[in-house]
């Protein structure tokens, strides 16, 4: 297990649960608050609200990840006219506050940061990133969660405030100067640590670690995947996969995109739009006269190899945060936990830990 540094006490506060509604209301004055709500039975989404009674505090995972707040599914990159060329439409400057983001999704943002930085940083993404505050919230895993294996079950940074349920209070970690500003502005809502709060925090962290049912051994995974490049499993997955692309859409770290140009009706101006794409779609690697990934198995395989090896090589970690969304959503019941375990030669899949 990776060592978790509990920040120095100056960065820790308690928030009585009964004060949460007031905090939300105050947050609403600082920006637009998006929080998890139950849209349909058991289907959660981040929606604009500061109304505590509407917020599903115990949600496990939203159907769509919060990546759309930094990187929308579709966004206009430019308007153009034949005389003036390409002009970027103005972007809102207002602060958005994401409330109730779980550790895996906070890690996912750090991963997207790496992608959108690189040799050619993407200004739209970072503009949004800078005007977005993140209030994290802890959670308890189900069988599709394997963040524990992906080392994303807890976070040390990447949030402004992080709330952990310790009974009557939330144990609040302050992760940014903005977070501290909020705490200072709502002095009455927060208190210092109480006797036993740290013990309770640790006790719950331990209990939570033991709740993970699904495990994937990730050490040496890149080497093992390389050795298994010709494993017949990839063919089997290719036969099952419907190339629907859902796994990419729900993944908090998938970032492929397509770019589409359009003329307006008059024909002298138009727009260029960026849209989420999926490497599972057949046309993804099509070029003149040849498709580099004609069969589905090579495309399914690409998704795994990209996340578990290529990304590791480039950025030092896997781009999967173990959120379980792709498992929940796949119509063909392809399960990343099972796939990775099978590649490792472990027939016992989940419930192994």
């Amino acid at each position, binding site marked *: 297990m990776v060592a978790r540094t509990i920040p120095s006490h100056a960065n820790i506060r308690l928030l009585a649960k009964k004060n949460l509604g007031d905090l939300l209301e105050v947050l609403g004055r600082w920006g637009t608050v998006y929080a998890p709500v139950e849209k349909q039975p058991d289907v959660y989404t981040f929606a604009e609200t500061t109304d505590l009674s509407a917020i599903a505090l115990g949600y496990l995972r939203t159907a769509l990840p919060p990546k759309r707040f930094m990187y929308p599914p579709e966004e206009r*990159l430019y308007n*153009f006219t*034949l005389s003036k*060329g*390409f002009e*970027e439409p103005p972007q809102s400057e207002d602060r958005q506050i994401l409330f109730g983001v779980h550790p895996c999704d906070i890690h996912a943002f*750090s991963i997207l*940061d*790496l992608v*959108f*930085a*690189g*040799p*050619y*940083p*993407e*200004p*739209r*993404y*970072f*503009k949004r*990133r*800078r005007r977005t505050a993140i209030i994290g919230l802890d959670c308890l895993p189900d069988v599709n969660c394997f963040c524990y294996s992906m080392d994303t079950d807890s976070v040390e*940074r*990447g949030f402004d405030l992080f709330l952990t349920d310790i009974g009557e209070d939330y144990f609040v970690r302050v992760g*940014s100067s903005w977070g501290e500003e909020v705490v200072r502005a709502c002095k009455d809502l927060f208190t210092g640590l109480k006797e036993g709060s740290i013990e309770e925090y640790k006790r719950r962290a331990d209990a939570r670690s033991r709740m993970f049912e699904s495990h994937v051994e990730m050490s040496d995974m*890149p*080497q093992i995947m*390389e050795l298994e*490049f010709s494993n017949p499993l990839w063919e089997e997955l290719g036969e099952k996969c419907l190339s629907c692309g859902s796994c990419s859409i729900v993944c908090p770290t998938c*970032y*492929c*995109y*397509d*770019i*589409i*140009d*359009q*003329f307006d009706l008059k*024909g002298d101006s*138009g727009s*260029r739009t*960026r849209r989420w*794409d999926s*490497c599972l779609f057949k046309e*993804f*690697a099509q*070029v*003149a006269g*040849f498709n*580099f*990934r004609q069969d589905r198995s*090579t495309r399914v395989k*690409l998704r795994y*190899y*990209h996340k578990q*090896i*290529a990304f590791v*090589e*480039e950025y030092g970690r896997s781009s999967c945060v173990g959120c379980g969304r792709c498992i929940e959503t796949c119509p063909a019941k392809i399960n990343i936990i099972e796939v990775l375990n099978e590649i490792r030669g472990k027939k016992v899949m989940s419930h192994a830990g």
Partner: protein
Amino acid sequence: MLAERIDARVDPHKPHLARLIRIDPMVKDHRLFQLRFEDPKLNDEFTHKPGQFVMLSVLGVGEIPVSLCSSPSRKGIMELMVRKVGRVTSALYALRENDFVGIRGPYGNGFPVDDMKGKDLVIVAGGLGTAPLRGLLWYCLDNRAEFGKIALLYGSRSTKDMLFRSEMESLLNRDDIQCLLSVEKLDDEEKDTWRGYTGLVTDLFRHLGEIGEDAYAAVCGPPVMYKYVLEELLNKGFDKNRILMSLERRMKCGIGKCAHCAIGYHSSVGYRYVCIHGPIFTYWDATNLPEMI
């Protein structure tokens, strides 16, 4: 947090307006476009390495990667050779001289010209493959003293399919480059005047003179050509690390983000985006990337 440290003021997706100042039809469905940025400052600043490419936008239609086929040694000239194959290229063909397109770049690694200096160089081109190689060829010829022997092997189906024919034939008159041209089929009316060979580009290797042990080769052409050309080069003793080729993949961003151009994995080479790690790869890379050729 990383997000706070990133300086993202420059928008890497933004194309600059450029004017088509000259359009030359070459062979069927191949045209040479000469461009100039509307912003004179960009014209002064723009430079590239041979083998790099730009993203070319036809307004309202789309954006495609195209190799720069001019040499950075000819400052102020940007030339692109485009084959008409589909939507964007057809829309480009519908434009006239003085019309606008969008350009951003240059992108990609380009040929490792600094490493190539002082060494012999064999350029092998087939068909449209001359586009990225032409920039390299003129770069080397314009900096002739910095390179060892230079040979060009260029094969096409017939003289009518030859790109840059007069330019290539003019090289036959130079004694600082061995220029070997071949056509698979020679038209009757050319029988007496054709100064090249008939046959496949691989047949030209027979005529290739002595080549240094640390020589470089740069290859580009249709997929069918590679296998045989690479075999010839290995037979000649070329090191796989010094056989260079330009790869084409579908590209949307050109800047290592959209993931369209990603190619497969092997630990000794890794995983690559053609747009930023390529488009120039060594044969060694290619033999180690299962998805590469």
